[in-house]
């Protein structure tokens, strides 16, 4: 596919049209002005719906009743993470029904979804709008996907659905507990997985909504995070997901001494920069989880409390809530079963919708009320621009997740080892810009901490500290001295395979086909 490209505000070539739809190039943070009105689902009537929406013929029958056909867009949430049991049977069923050219729009994908490749190859799926990692990322990066992939943040997916840019024909919502009317929650039943917030937009805006559960309770299912008034069909399955597999590699606290050292630096920086007691957010990833225990120790020692913390909830965050070190957990997803239990049992642990937490096309969201956010990245460059989706070899590796959204915190910290298996993380220029320079405040590595020169206030506050504060250039040179100078990977700059959306629907960068 050859495409017309224009340079956007971060100097990256981006296509003006993707999958037949016109695009806005990134114009700078806060520069793009949306117009028009939000999208809405078709108006239903009670006359068409009974109180018992259970479908006898299972998922296939429900899909038929939704009028599934070629070219439709299907949405699903990812709260079961690597324990999802629905996506593969869903597409096996669609393949069996000989449906093709579907757009798949999950809120995230995980290693368990690798077998989807056969449906991408056979043309059941035309392209993915969501996250592409591991073998699916490789498949897309090699230019083998029929359409162009679109990667959005968690907040960006909600913005796109609400703005009508991503229209979901059929929203599929796996839920651990539901009543026959379709009211549902994620905290009860044998497959309890935590909040269901990433399925909310699908429930509100999709033309058809199929709720899938393995635990039906009599009406009313309370709490009802998903409401029956938005649901067309309820499908019962034997198992909707495996909550034991919610915990994946990225949600375990690291034991690596180097990563623990980085986490300690992060906690020390937070205190010395004056953010101890400010609301904070932890991302997934070993370091981002590990800094919490060091932060907790510092808060305890100083007798300081934070008004709230933003989940992904884990046992570590739950312990801080129980101890009174944080006033509330505003949770987007559970990273472990302690998080699930706390959400169910503790009224100060609240499930939030990405609509309220992250949506940039709203009248304010609480991501910007967070004091400090600690996240990872695959690369950061000398201009403090960061990449989270591709490795420096150009292959798609991760989804954006909430990463772009959390950067709106007052102080955003990227924490990672300076190099991984000889590959430097601080580079001259990132392969893919996922966030512009003004969004990244601090880079913390085991071999030094660099502060964005835009943040003179932060530089002043940590002056005289024992922290190893250096310039980003110095970090760059330190990595080079150890690893050597890497060669640049080959990319076909006329063959876009995916685009990266900024939180406001504009295209911030393009992923190009790798190899010759």
């Amino acid at each position, binding site marked *: 596919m050859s495409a017309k490209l224009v340079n956007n505000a971060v100097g990256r070539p981006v296509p003006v049209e993707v999958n037949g739809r016109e695009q806005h190039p990134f114009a700078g943070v806060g520069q793009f002005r949306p117009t028009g009105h939000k999208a809405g689902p078709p108006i239903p009537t009670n006359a068409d719906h009974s109180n018992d929406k259970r479908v006898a013929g299972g998922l296939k029958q429900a899909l038929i009743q939704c009028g599934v056909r070629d070219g439709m867009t299907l949405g699903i949430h990812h709260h079961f993470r690597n324990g999802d049991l629905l996506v593969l049977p869903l597409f096996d069923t669609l393949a069996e029904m000989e449906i093709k050219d579907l757009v798949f729009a999950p809120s995230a994908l995980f290693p368990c979804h690798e077998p989807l490749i056969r449906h991408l190859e056979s043309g059941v799926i035309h392209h993915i709008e969501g996250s592409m990692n591991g073998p699916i990322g490789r498949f897309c990066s090699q230019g083998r996907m029929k359409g162009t992939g679109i990667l959005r943040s968690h907040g960006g997916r909600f913005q796109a659905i609400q703005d009508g840019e991503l229209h979901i024909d059929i929203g599929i919502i796996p839920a651990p507990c539901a009543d026959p009317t379709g009211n549902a929650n994620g905290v009860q039943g044998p497959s309890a997985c935590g909040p269901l917030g990433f399925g909310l937009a699908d429930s509100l805006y999709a033309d058809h909504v199929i709720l899938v559960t393995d635990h039906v309770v009599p009406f009313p299912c309370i709490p009802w995070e998903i409401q029956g008034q938005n649901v067309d069909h309820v499908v019962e399955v034997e198992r909707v997901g495996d909550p034991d597999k919610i915990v994946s590699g990225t949600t375990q606290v690291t034991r690596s*001494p*180097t990563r623990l*050292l980085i986490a300690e630096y992060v906690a020390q920086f937070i205190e010395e920069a004056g953010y101890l007691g400010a609301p904070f957010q932890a991302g997934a990833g070993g370091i981002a989880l590990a800094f919490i225990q060091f932060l907790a120790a510092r808060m305890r020692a100083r007798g300081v409390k934070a008004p709230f913390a933003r989940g992904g909830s884990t046992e570590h965050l739950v312990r801080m809530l129980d101890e009174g070190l944080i006033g509330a957990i505003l949770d987007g997803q559970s990273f472990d079963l302690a998080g699930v239990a706390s959400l169910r049992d503790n009224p100060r642990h609240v499930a939030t919708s990405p609509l309220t937490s992250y949506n940039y096309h709203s009248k304010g969201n609480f991501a910007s009320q967070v004091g400090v956010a600690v996240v990872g990245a695959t690369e950061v460059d000398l201009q403090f621009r960061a990449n989270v989706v591709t490795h420096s070899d150009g292959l798609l590796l991760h989804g954006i997740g909430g990463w772009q959204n959390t950067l709106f915190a007052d102080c955003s910290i990227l924490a990672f080892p300076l190099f991984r298996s*000889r*590959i430097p993380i601080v580079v001259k220029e990132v392969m893919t810009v996922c966030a512009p320079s003004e969004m990244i405040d601090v880079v913390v590595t*085991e071999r030094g901490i660099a502060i964005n020169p835009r943040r003179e206030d932060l530089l002043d506050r940590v002056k005289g500290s024992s922290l190893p504060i250096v310039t980003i250039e110095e970090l760059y040179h330190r990595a080079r001295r150890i690893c*050597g100078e*890497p*060669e640049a*990977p080959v990319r076909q700059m006329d063959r876009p395979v995916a685009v990266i959306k900024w939180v406001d629907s504009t295209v911030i960068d393009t992923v190009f086909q790798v190899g010759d």
Partner: protein
Amino acid sequence: MQDTVQVGRDAREDLVVELTSSSGSTTEIQLHSTVATFFGARIQQVVRQTLEQLGLEGVQVVVRDQGALDWVIQARVEAAAHLLRPQQTAQRAVLPPMLEGADRPVARDRMRRSRLYLPGDQPDLMINAALFEPDAVILDLEDAVAPPQKFAARYLVRNALRAVDFGPAERMVRINQLPRGLADLPDLVSQPLHTILLPKAERGGDVAAVAQRIRELVTNSPREIFIMPILESALGIENALAIASAEPEVVALAFGAEDFTRDIGAVRTDEGRESFVARSRLVLAARAAGVQPIDTVYSDVGNEAGLLAATREAIALGFDGKGCIHPRQIRTIHQAFRPSERDVAYALKVQRAMAQAEVRGDGVIAIGSKMIDPPVVARAQRVLKLAEFYHMDLSPEVGR
């Protein structure tokens, strides 16, 4: 002579090298690397140059790499070459460039509170060791390396001494038990190395053999290589004084609890009663010989409170240092050695009393009506030296 040899580990930041003799004179390299996109050409070049400098041609090379640095690749290829063609390559070595400052000397009575053991065949752990600021790093060729890896580990350790930034840490290598350990020395002694650890030392003669061998090998270097014998048997403890005073190069005596308890037929306990007498005798012998007594490692890595208590106990027995098997133990050990504010305040009082005595010229040091004995003065001076090392507040108000 073998037709095919294999060296290295299937692990991150390491590589496996397989060399096979072939009939032709060309060298063929088959490279599989997780970082081939970035460093494929570089790895090919390093492998080829290393083989050339060793004078090896007509070999087939298979490399499975997971992001190893140049000095690691060189060490693995060289070890494989020596195994494949021992006669042909015996007199040759491929040394990576020496990092600036690596050969800076250290004082014989320097701080040895913490010494971090690094397995001699794991390059990934070596690269980051300095970040944790141990007083010393020990590149271990003995117990941490499985017998089949020992030969190759020697080249890795040699190259690490040249190429890895260990910061201000004292660079130690634990050689193998004698007599095998003597064969480790030729590849090491000309490298930037401060101290040889001699495991299972049992007689003064063991130390003499190592010192003698080093003197034979190093003929034109002004730099002294220190020796730190490790006593880990009943016989070693019985001969502690002879070992400590065997050669002027000995700077410390270390205790090895694991082997010692096995040797005396006891079981190692948390309380350590089974080794109490031995450790005390080691302290006495070391002090009698004017060298530092250094305690054994604490093996429960997750138990920070236990390590702190064990280190404080070691300090109370007279030890100057403790071994570490995990980087996170270092800070705890350093914390244990930090003098208390009270000790520092008292030491400052003693110092002031000394100054007053000097002014009066009567040589009688007293605080109030209490006379201060010379050992107390000496201890105060030690505390102040340590406090200075820890950047503690030594302003006059502290002592008042």
